[in-house]
């Protein structure tokens, strides 16, 4: 059976599974649609949260992000996991006790203000819509690469599948499909990782292999990687380069942003009890860690593997033999395969028939003497590290097919979670809470389904016509979540006296300063050329990158809110009692929606 048929079979089988689950888990009530009737087992919810959280970017790009920077990009690992500690300790149990369906629901009721609700709805919509663009384009790309269909055809198929299970099943359908998607994506990620670890270090667990001895050289894997990188003129892998302050703030922004993302928060509304919400956050992190502790190992090993493929010989002193690199005609099959996609490209700049890969900005001493004319690996897309891993490790075709299904599972599960957050903000927060409070249960369920269909149509359209700034926009989503929603929710729980004016002023200051800072360096609405200052470290305020500003925005939000509170009357007595009641778990089971 050829690879294409195999891909088609595995991806087709996974889709049939998702649709089957959707038919089994149809939603009959708004409680089903928004919160899966609060009947989800906490461990199941943990796996669903993990799939919800891990996007196409986590699955495909993260190992590459770490591989090409090394220690400096540990920020992603700590930032995207540390947020779950904030969720478990500061937000999830109390929001579950509050017993509503959406994040704006909590902010609107706790701050007894439709304005606060509206600000929350707007920031939710901006961050979720921007985030979903990336997922839809990711799904389209995965389709076109593995199933050889047009990008747009792939996107339509992906939208149709999400449509079936999200519109039919709402949160209930999404939860159980996410569980299946988690299983698919983690198996797909782990199998090639275990094999590359076995090949390079003899260690079964990639997490151990990362710190084990590189079998071929007898040196520790990371020491070997440092050595060959420095030899080729690159920065060492384990060293700390760049600003410490920026690294801390970027990590903190990712952590707070993670905890403030509405599509993650609403997952914790689906468990039966408050204690389950705490436990479920722990399980979510266990399932996430299964991928996140493997990713840095995959990154380091794949990078070393590629370098030793290009420089197969070593000198007597254990250095790379720069005089005898790989000849063009000896390229392994996986390189030829990926060159066809355009993601990998070589160019024999000095016409010697040999591949030279090095840092042309800081060439090794021998470069001149050997007649090197520049780095001949002219294109190396970081995503290849994960996508080509099974081929590099010579694994059978079904593993490659599994990677295709895994990438699609990661994109679709995240897209579905975001679409639910968007549709519930429209049907529940805008229609039910603000425009027509007398809408019937049936009417609201219908509205929720129509909003979902509308959100999918919008996401598909944006996926087909992605705005040029799609990559920067993810940074904006984290910045917004960190600077607006997280502080508002936290003060709503931990400060009994916080009033509506304080919360609204805080959100606007946090949101405003973050958006302003990002636009100053990246251009107004990301339009190239409209930035007021060049986006380089010299021009950043105290060396803080626009991507790291979310944490500062959050701090400004807290400060502005408390200053406003000190000048206005504290929250009314009944609101303070409400806060008292969400602080204790007892009575969560009976807490009703409205």
């Amino acid at each position, binding site marked *: 059976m050829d690879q294409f048929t195999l891909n088609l079979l595995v991806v087709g089988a996974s889709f049939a599974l998702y649709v089957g689950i959707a038919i089994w888990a149809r939603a009959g009530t708004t409680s089903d649609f928004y919160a899966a009737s609060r009947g989800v087992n906490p461990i199941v919810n943990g796996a669903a949260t993990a799939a919800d959280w891990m996007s196409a970017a986590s699955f495909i790009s993260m190992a590459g992000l*770490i591989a090409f920077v090394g*220690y400096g990009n*540990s920020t992603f*690992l*700590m930032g995207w*996991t*540390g947020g*779950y*500690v904030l969720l*478990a*300790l*500061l937000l999830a*149990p109390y929001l579950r006790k509050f017993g509503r369906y959406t994040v704006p629901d909590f902010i609107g009721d706790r701050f007894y203000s439709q304005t606060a609700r509206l600000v929350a709805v707007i920031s939710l919509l901006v961050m979720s819509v921007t985030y979903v663009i990336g997922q839809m384009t990711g799904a389209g790309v995965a389709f076109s690469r593995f199933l050889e269909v047009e990008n747009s055809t792939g996107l339509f198929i992906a939208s149709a599948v999400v449509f079936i299970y999200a519109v039919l099943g709402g949160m209930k359908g999404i939860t159980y499909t996410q569980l299946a998607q988690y299983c698919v994506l983690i198996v797909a990620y782990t199998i090639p990782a275990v094999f590359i670890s076995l090949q390079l270090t003899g260690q079964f667990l990639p*997490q151990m292999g*990362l*710190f*084990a001895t590189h079998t071929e050289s007898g*040196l*520790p*894997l*990371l*020491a*070997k990687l*440092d050595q060959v990188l420095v030899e080729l003129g690159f920065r060492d892998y*384990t060293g*700390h380069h760049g600003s*410490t302050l920026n*690294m*801390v703030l970027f*990590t*903190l922004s990712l952590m707070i942003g993670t905890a403030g993302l509405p599509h993650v928060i609403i997952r914790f509304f689906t468990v039966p*009890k*408050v*204690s389950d919400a*705490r*436990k479920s*956050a*722990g399980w979510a*992190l*266990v399932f996430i*860690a299964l991928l*996140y*502790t493997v990713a*840095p190992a995959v990154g380091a090993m794949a990078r070393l593997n590629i370098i030793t493929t290009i420089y197969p010989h070593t000198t007597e002193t254990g250095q790379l033999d720069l005089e005898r690199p790989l000849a063009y005609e000896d390229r392994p099959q996986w390189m030829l395969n990926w060159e066809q996609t355009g993601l990998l490209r070589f160019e024999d700049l000095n016409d010697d028939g040999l591949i030279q890969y090095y840092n042309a900005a800081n060439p090794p001493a021998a470069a001149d003497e050997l007649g090197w004319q520049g780095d001949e690996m002219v294109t190396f897309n970081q995503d290849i590290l994960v996508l080509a891993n099974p081929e590099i490790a010579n694994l059978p075709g079904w593993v490659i097919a599994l990677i295709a299904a895994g990438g699609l599972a990661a994109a679709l599960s995240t897209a579905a979670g975001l679409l639910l957050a968007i549709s519930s903000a429209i049907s529940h927060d805008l229609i039910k809470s603000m425009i027509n409070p007398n809408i019937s249960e049936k009417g609201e369920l219908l509205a929720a389904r129509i909003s979902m269909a509308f959100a999918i149509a919008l996401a598909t359209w944006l996926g087909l016509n992605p705005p040029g700034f799609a990559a920067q926009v993810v940074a904006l989503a984290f910045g917004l979540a960190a600077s607006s929603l997280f502080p508002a929710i936290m003060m709503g729980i*931990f400060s009994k006296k916080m009033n509506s004016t304080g919360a609204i002023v805080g959100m606007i200051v946090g949101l405003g300063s973050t958006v302003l800072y990002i636009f100053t360096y990246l251009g107004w609405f990301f339009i190239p050329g409209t930035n007021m200052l060049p986006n380089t470290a010299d021009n950043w305020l105290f060396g803080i990158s626009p991507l790291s500003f979310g944490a500062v925005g959050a701090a400004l939000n807290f400060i502005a809110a408390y200053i406003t509170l000190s000048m206005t009357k504290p929250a009314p007595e009944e609101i303070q009692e409400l806060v*008292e009641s969400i*602080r*204790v*778990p*007892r*009575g*969560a*089971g009976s807490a009703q929606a409205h």
Partner: protein
Amino acid sequence: MSDKSASAYWSANVRIITICMVIWALVSFGFGIVLRPLISGIPIGGTDLGFWFAQQGSILTFIALIFYYTWYMNRLDKEFGVDEE
């Protein structure tokens, strides 16, 4: 629940949250980033302990923290009689 035990429950909760958050910050921002030079003398697999904390240790500690907090709070809920039936 009386007002007094309500405030005792809440301050016990805030205390354990604070302790967990200190550890949370110590393993990530501390050992993983700012304090890495201080513990660079401890070698682990070709690099130093700070690198391990940044790419593995902090994540494992986060998991342990959440489960510890869950266990602690379940006990505290029972002690104050605010657990769910």
